[in-house]
């Protein structure tokens, strides 16, 4: 009986939902059907770690389909480099690099050339390319070298495994990813865990750079103490984890990612998927946001945490990281506040089968999918432009303008904590501490709330100091009056007693 009743309930509900949908179709035919395939699903994490839906900041602007270029099927492309309107795709499996000319406005694209055996550069499994000073620097992993060509594809130099005591001569030199900054080439090579290999443009080895700190805790130490020599040999040796990618941000700092860690290490904070290295090789990534820069903060056990495979840093100091686990892209601002997360695994536009590399063209993001051999171009939506402009204006010191923009953002997405935070900070700058407190509270920004509170408290005390002055004054006056009257009364008393004694006499 019970089940039957609930079943009818469900049918009725389904019917009414269908009816409502049909009514919608009849009333607003376009609107009800307008499922915008260009948009993906965006969210951010709030201070409690809940994923909150937000309007998309990025949408698919175009897709570059290498299938239309008549150059055959790409085979596991794994590298993408963008410089101006030039887009390089490392077609790793076919031992060639494809250079495209892409219009930065309307994304029309055409084949410029193919760098490979036909054009005089015998590449074997190239995985990355980089442009610097009119030189093409190619990670030619299959040939165990880094190849440097000039613009006409004449070989300028080769970099082989350096002849140095610090370089393990038993491991083949397989450069995988590289970046150039400040005239130095930084190479992430396979099975090298001492950090990035640093070369100058003339090919001289300068040393290792920016190794991640070695993790070692007392538990490991304890077990190692008990273990026999054979067991010790079989255990993990405690070495720095190797990076999987390296990019350069707008200020010339290296952004590196690594994906070799366990979920537990990520939870306890010992794993650092994203690092920003200064010239000394120390990590200067700012993580002042409500969450750490690790991509997804919750995950199911089977798929595990986000594995960051590439980083693209924009000119406004925000950066975007590409997660190969779920095919998502996470955006962070300079302070490590999460701007957005979008994308996913799938076959729809804006989703990926196996995302392998990402780079930026201006503020557009280009993502290479190694399986479908498609490059998806993400461009800002109006909402994304608004957010970006609000952050940019704040960083440039145009606080009033930034506040205005953040209010517009808030009008669109009331759940966007960054907007509350932005308005709060602007109000703090403008001296409206009381309102700032309110906004910063909504944004759960304890740091700036504390700052605002300190100033508000000071202001309050300065405004109300007269109460204390009046009170103290009143107290002093009271004491004084009491003393005066007391002494007067005392004198009267003595006078009276004297009179009395006089009378008695």
């Amino acid at each position, binding site marked *: 009986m019970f089940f039957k009743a609930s079943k009818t309930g469900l049918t009725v509900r389904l019917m009414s939902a269908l009816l409502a949908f049909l009514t919608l179709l009849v009333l607003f035919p376009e609107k009800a059907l307008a499922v915008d395939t260009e948009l993906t699903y965006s969210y951010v994490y709030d201070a409690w770690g809940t994923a909150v839906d937000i309007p998309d900041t990025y949408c698919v602007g175009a897709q570059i389909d290498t299938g239309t270029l008549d150059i055959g099927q790409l085979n596991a492309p794994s590298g993408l480099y963008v410089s101006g309107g030039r887009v390089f795709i490392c077609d790793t499996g076919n031992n060639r690099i494809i250079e495209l000319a892409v219009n930065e406005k309307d994304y029309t694209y055409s084949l410029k050339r193919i760098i490979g055996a036909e054009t005089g550069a015998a590449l074997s499994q190239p995985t990355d390319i980089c442009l610097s000073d009119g030189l093409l620097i190619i990670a030619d992993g299959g040939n165990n070298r880094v190849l440097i060509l000039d613009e006409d594809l004449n070989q300028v130099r080769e970099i082989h495994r350096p002849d140095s005591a610090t370089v393990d001569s038993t491991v083949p030199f397989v450069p995988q990813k590289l970046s150039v900054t400040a005239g130095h080439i930084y190479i992430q090579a396979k099975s090298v865990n001492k950090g990035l290999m640093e070369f100058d443009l003339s090919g001289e080895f300068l040393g290792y750079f920016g190794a991640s700190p070695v993790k070692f805790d007392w538990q490991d130490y304890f077990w190692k103490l008990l273990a026999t020599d054979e067991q010790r040999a079989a255990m993990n040796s405690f070495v720095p984890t190797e990076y999987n990618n390296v990019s350069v941000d707008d200020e010339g700092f290296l952004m590196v990612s690594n994906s070799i860690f366990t979920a537990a290490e990520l939870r306890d904070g010992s794993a650092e998927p994203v690092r920003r290295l200064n010239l000394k090789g120390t990590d200067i990534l700012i993580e002042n946001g409500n969450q750490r820069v690790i991509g997804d903060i919750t995950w199911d056990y089977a798929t595990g945490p986000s594995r960051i495979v590439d980083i693209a840093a924009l000119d406004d100091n925000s950066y975007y990281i590409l997660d190969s686990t779920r095919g998502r892209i996470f955006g962070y601002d300079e302070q490590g506040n999460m701007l957005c997360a979008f994308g996913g695994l799938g076959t729809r536009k804006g989703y990926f089968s196996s995302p392998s590399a990402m780079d930026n063209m201006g503020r557009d993001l280009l993502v290479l999918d190694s399986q479908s051999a498609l490059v998806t171009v993400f461009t800002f939506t109006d909402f994304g432009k608004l957010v970006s402009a609000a952050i940019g204006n704040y960083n440039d010191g145009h606080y009033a303008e930034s506040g205005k923009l953040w209010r517009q953002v808030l009008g669109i997405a009331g759940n966007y904590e960054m907007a509350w935070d932005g308005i709060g900070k602007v109000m703090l700058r403008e001296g409206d501490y009381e309102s700032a407190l309110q906004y910063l509270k909504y944004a759960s920004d*304890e740091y700036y*709330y504390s700052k605002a*509170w*300190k100033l508000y*408290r000071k202001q309050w005390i300065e405004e109300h100091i007269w109460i204390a002055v009046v009170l103290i004054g009143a107290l002093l006056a009271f004491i004084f009056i009491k003393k005066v009257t007391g002494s007067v009364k005392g004198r009267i008393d003595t006078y009276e007693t004297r009179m009395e004694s006089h009378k008695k006499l």
Partner: protein
Amino acid sequence: MKRVWNRIKNSKILAGLRYARYVIFHPFDGFWDLTHANEGSLGAANVIIFLTLAVRLVRLRFTGFMFLDIYWPEVSVWTETLTILVPLLLFCISNWAITTLFDGKGTFKHIYMGVGYALTPYPIIQLIMVILSNLVTSDEGVFYSVLNGLSLGWCAFLIIIALMMIHVYSLGRTILSTLASILGMLIIMLICLGFFSMLSEAIAFVGSLIREIQIRVY
């Protein structure tokens, strides 16, 4: 009116509360006289425990934003209350059970009263903390955390002394019996858990039996 006031003023509970003020600063004498000289009152202990529960709720509502890390959708008044009350009562029961076996002089009433009196600093300091949390910035949060530690440490110290005096134990014996009481709490919880899960199994069994008969017969 005056008679009512006098009655309140001379009530045993108020006298007991006044005695609590003496106890927290003179724990050794205080707790000794609490039971051995019948200075304490059960009503006062109840009031102190009630105040402890009340201040927990006040704390949730009125602590300043910077010092309160709380996710409101998951807060329940009952959970907040019971997470104090249940362990407290369990501890009293378990401690009574253990000390009865090992020459403890205190009765259950004495233990409950002693623990109740020992909680006195908690509501007082926590109330100060609530006020303070609305005045200081997070840079000055050290005061807040020191007070928090003080409120807990003081209470823990008082509970140990209370049990020591009530049962006429040495310090080492008190600590041992306290640890044993905590173990006893766990055992009690385990038994309760087992009991209730068995009970629900039994009910489910009877229920399914009835359903089976219904289906067969009709």
